[in-house]
């Protein structure tokens, strides 16, 4: 063997450490959570938006399984199962049901600013999230620490989703995505939180989803639109 690898070897000296295959895979799943959220920023239709949420929840559930496998936590399998059933199946179905009669309008989901600008702003926010959480120097036994940075970014982008989008569906999904981001954070920070508590969180989320759905329907019933820019009556 001439050149190639032989030459490359010494050059690699200053490179950042390579994560193990497990850490790399876990991190990739965490990044998938963030990426689906960026997709939510630009999604223009109701159903794809809800599907993106299901996809994101799938990634979170997968991450829970990854942690469960790596740390041999039986509880987490249960949690992953419950979270899959609720967030990937039940919640998307419930939201779609509740908004069925409103869902056929095209192009009603929109943003305050252009998509490209939105992505750039969100990128800046997620960069901030990365560095903010990185500066805490938190060590975790369950996941690579940088997954926490991804969680922080996910949480901040969820806020942007709520702030920058002006339709009830995106805003509601933004809240659910926020919860997903926190789920990732809790997998990093508190993987062994008692299962009762975790499940309580999840059912709480389910209740919140129903309420969001009901209120969104009330909103649509009153204004005949999913847009929220009409909500400017109350001020002062």
């Amino acid at each position, binding site marked *: 063997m001439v050149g190639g690898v032989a030459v490359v070897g010494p*050059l690699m000296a200053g490179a950042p450490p390579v994560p193990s295959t497990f850490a*790399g895979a876990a991190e*990739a799943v965490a990044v998938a959570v963030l990426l689906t959220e960026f997709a939510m920023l630009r999604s223009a239709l109701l159903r794809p938006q809800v599907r993106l949420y299901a996809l994101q929840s799938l990634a979170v559930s997968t991450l829970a399984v990854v942690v469960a496998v790596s740390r041999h936590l039986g509880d987490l399998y249960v949690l992953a199962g419950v979270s899959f059933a609720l967030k990937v199946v039940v919640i998307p179905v419930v939201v779609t049901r509740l908004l069925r009669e409103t869902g056929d309008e095209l192009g009603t989901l929109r943003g305050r600013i252009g998509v*490209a600008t939105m992505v750039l702003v969100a990128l800046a926010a997620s960069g901030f999230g990365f560095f903010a959480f990185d500066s805490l120097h938190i060590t975790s036994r369950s996941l690579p620490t*940088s997954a926490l940075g991804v969680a922080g970014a996910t949480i901040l982008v969820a806020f942007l989703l709520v702030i920058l989008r002006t339709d009830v569906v995106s805003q509601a999904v933004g809240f659910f995505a926020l919860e997903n981001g926190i789920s990732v954070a809790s997998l990093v920070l508190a993987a062994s939180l008692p299962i009762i508590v975790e499940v309580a969180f999840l059912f709480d989320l389910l209740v919140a989803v129903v309420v969001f759905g009901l209120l969104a329907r009330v909103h649509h019933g009153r204004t005949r639109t999913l847009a929220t820019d009409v909500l400017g009556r109350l001020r002062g």
Partner: protein
Amino acid sequence: MSGTQLLPAEVQVLQDLTVLVLAPLVSGAIAHLEGRLQGRRGPRILQPYYDLAKLFRKETLVPEDATWVFLAGPVVAFMCYLVVPLLIPELTTFALPLGYMGDILGGGFILALASFSVALAAADSGGPYAQLGSSRAMTFGALIEPSILFVVFVVAIVTTTDLPYAEAATARSSLSQAIRPAHLLAAIAFFHVVLSDTGRIPVETHTGTLELGMIDEARTFEHSGAALALLKWGSNMKQLILYVLLMDVFAAPWGLAGSRQVGSVLLAIPILVGKAIGLGAIFAVIDNSLSKLRLYKITEFMAVAFLLAVLALLVLYLGGG
């Protein structure tokens, strides 16, 4: 036969020849596949060769107001596309003597020079559509540029160098290198860059005839004969070069020759073509399943590529990637 070693120079020549000769074949195969996907028979796989031969036989017309730039452009671009293959891991896993002549940025500059000279030639023609195309191509080229830069940064941090060979070797070295998120994200970002630079949906319809939506294609409107042939051939070569960059540097740097033995080098050529056609098939499927973005929405596409590249860098910086 397996014992015979090729000289480094011979392999380099072979690299260039591969791109030069086989690029139209790859394009033809993809066009054929696309036709099949759309339920047509599709053009013959060798059609691009016939097209080129026909164009070379035709006379070359030059607009009245055009200067020497008009004819020089296609030639310069063609030359550029012949230089780039020398810098990238096309047939061999190891760098050949000229491989250290330029890094990824160097290769990028040469590709940019090619695209610039084509745009200049188009602008020189004075034709409105050609000028429109060249101005758009330069605009979107500038917009995709940051993504390319960030991909390069990622490569640079991962390998502490920005030689394409080094990145390919790193990705090949272990599974954990290949699936580390930074690498995956950079690869996907680069995929977007290729999508945009080869004029594919969702950025542009490469087979379209509607001038208003055209970007790259519109630039060649005023050229004819041998100049047009050079442009077309050049764009086939550019496509193959970008595919090679995507596959052999990021996505699938396998199947390259590990030594200069005749057998393994020659075997690398069909593998390369096969991989390129496979990748082309993916692009063809994308072409068929997505619709073209409105011109003003293309920035969103660029933003996505940028997002992926920056995320790759962030993930990497935090030590998890």
